[in-house]
């Protein structure tokens, strides 16, 4: 990119600036008291990127960093409204003795262990199918698979609460055609969990499949050709070429899905309200209840930090386990 002389001029002045950023001997180069010159210096090719990222940095500082720090402070306090007293780690100790927190964590972990592998496996199968040249009308199928992830989370929850209704739901009607008894999808602890898993899987499989599809299309065809020349069958090609080549994307989807599942809120909130008997209560839902229903902001903040810690540890663990075997 070429620069106008006026823009280039200050750049040459850079040589006179010391390593500490002190404008050594600057006074000899510019008119004393020239404000106009000073302003011009602010807009240099080097400064423009900083100016451009400034709104984002400020936005982050005001709307993210400050709330994060404030939330940590609140997690160390108890009290109402502005009247907060420092209570040290009391909220965190309370967390350890709270059966509902452990129930919520257990539910979340259960959904994580069951749903994430199921969904990612399904997404991989879908991606493989969509990548096949034998599939007719591929763009249409791809669109169809991706569309559920465009649905609003609450809308998906409401839709499934109608589909899963025991007496008038679509799913039980379909099952009845095959002579299957009505399932109390949202009224029994086990089936309610299955219901939540169903909704999330429906919602996010296509999203992950599209990521895998992108990864599959990046695998060099020569690898497959070479393998075929060597006599490798489709299964061997899948395990020896496709999977290793997809590893970075697999890692990405596993980490994103783990974080997403740990923050699960909307679907079970709309679908079951956390019930029955807390079978689908998630950590974020419990956090929300404590903050916005019980007005216990100190405890809710402690929950948020506990969750953040768990998410970070799991993320690091996954990257270590999957990322370094390259």
């Amino acid at each position, binding site marked *: 990119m070429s620069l106008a002389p006026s823009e280039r001029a*200050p*750049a040459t*002045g*850079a040589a006179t*600036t010391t390593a500490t*950023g002190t*404008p050594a001997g600057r006074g000899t180069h510019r008119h004393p008291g020239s404000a106009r010159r000073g302003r011009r*210096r*602010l807009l*240099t*090719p*080097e*400064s423009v990127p*900083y*100016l451009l990222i*400034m*709104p984002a940095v*400020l936005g982050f500082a*005001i709307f993210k960093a400050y709330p994060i720090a404030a939330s940590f402070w609140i997690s160390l306090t108890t009290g*109402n*409204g*502005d*009247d907060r007293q420092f209570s040290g780690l009391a909220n965190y100790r309370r967390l350890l*003795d*709270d*059966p*509902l927190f452990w129930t919520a964590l257990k539910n979340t972990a259960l959904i994580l262990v069951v749903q994430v592998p199921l969904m990612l496996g399904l997404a991989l199968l879908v991606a493989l199918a969509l990548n096949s040249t034998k599939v007719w009308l591929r763009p249409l199928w791809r669109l169809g698979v991706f569309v559920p992830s465009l649905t609003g989370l609450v809308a998906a929850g*409401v839709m499934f*609460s*109608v589909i899963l*209704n*025991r*007496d*008038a*739901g679509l799913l039980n009607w379909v099952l009845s055609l095959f002579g299957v008894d009505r399932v*109390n999808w*949202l*009224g*029994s*602890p086990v089936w*309610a969990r299955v219901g939540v898993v169903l909704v999330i899987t429906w919602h996010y499989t296509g999203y992950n499949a599209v990521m895998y599809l992108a990864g599959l299309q990046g695998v060099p065809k020569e690898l497959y050709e070479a393998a075929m020349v060597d006599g490798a069958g489709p299964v061997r090609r899948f395990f020896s070429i496709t999977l290793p080549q997809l590893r970075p994307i697999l890692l990405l989807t596993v980490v994103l899905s783990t974080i997403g599942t740990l923050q699960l809120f909307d679907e079970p909130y709309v679908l*079951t*309200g956390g*019930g*029955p*008997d*807390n079978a689908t209560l998630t950590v974020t839902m419990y956090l929300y*209840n404590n903050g*916005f*229903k*019980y*007005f216990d*902001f100190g405890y809710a903040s402690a929950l948020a930090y506990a969750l953040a810690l768990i998410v970070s540890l799991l993320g690091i663990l996954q990257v270590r386990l999957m990322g370094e075997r390259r």
Partner: protein
Amino acid sequence: MSHHLSRRHLLQLATASAAGLGLTACGGSGSGGSGGGGGADGDSGKITVWSWTTAAEALRGVVPSFERDNPGITVDVQDLGNPAIWDKITVGLASGGKGLADVLHIGVDYLPGYMEKFPQGLADLSELGADQHKDAFVEGLWPTVIGKDKAVHALPWEVNPLGLFYRHDYFEKADVDPASLTSWDDLIAAGPKIRAATGAQLLGLDKPGTVQDMDFFQNLMQLQGAFYFDAEGRVTLASDEAVQALTVIKRLNDAGLLADTAGQGTWKRLVGQGKLATAPYPAWAIEYLSDKFPAQSGKWRVMQPPAAVPGGGRSAIVNSTFLSVSATSKRRKAAWRFIEYALTKPAEINRMFASGGVFPALKAAYTDPKFSAPDPFYGGQKVLKSFVDSLTAGAGATNFTGDYSRALKLASDAQSQVLIKGADPAEALKAAAKQLAQQTGRQQAA
């Protein structure tokens, strides 16, 4: 890397931008209303009101006469929807009152919590003269509006006395005399007869607790003069009264008289299909039933709710709603004038009742002829009168406290454990009460 934009420059720029943002933020702050008014206790200008659905519609009906009688004040009633309104008010109060409307419509399930957790959040209406209306409202509501500072923070608007709506035609078909049903024991005994004759179950309940609808359990406690907390705020969730309430529910369930109404619109559908013989609901259901099920006109009647224990009390106030003024309102006086106008004038309150079905808490409103008029939907029964009679019979004040939501959740869990897993009511409630005490730091009543 450039050295031209020194760290000092960066800091200067950041400070300037932050100041700019701050100024912008200040410019946009203030109460939800806009327009004139001036000072903190502005007596004129535009005030905003937050309410929901039919209640908001009813409030809008008051606006023309209020604006005519109070030149200089204009009112904007906003329907935020329920439950969205609670998040909005909570967030506003938690952030020091920023962005709140001048007038807030608040339910009894939230009001004590707001007063307790945000003691500076709702305006002191005693200063504006609210105490003079103390005896104007039905018994049992005034203690709810008093904060820890002994000041009044809301005026009662709606009160919901409990009744038992029942399908008169089903009772006749099953040869059950409603007058003979004085306790839930009697209903549990009559239930199988009704079911055999009509195929209908006695009542519906959200068994897994998807929406935490604990009204029936609470009603059974309120009929015994009890609740989750006693007057001192101690936890009474494991009291004999609570165990009795949950035992009645368990017996109804065990006898196959309880339909599961979990899920969107299930209760409505079951009533529409004629599969429920009774509905232990408060006064708002008078209009709701006639509005939603016009085809069932003439088939319903209302009776006093049966007692939770044989020989026990038969009146209860299920819930109530209130109007408050936010403490940060720039037009508190104007907001108070609107509240006082809407809630203490019988003509206005009855106008709202007519348009929104909000049963008034103002005693003077009951002298209106419509409260003794026969209702064709209920076969010519004077339904409103039966509810007024129930209110004048007197119902104790219910101490919802600031921890009601937590209590509700734990009670709902206990009920689900009993109905879904067959847990013992006493054991489930004992565990719930223990947890409630632990989580709130409250004592358990002996």
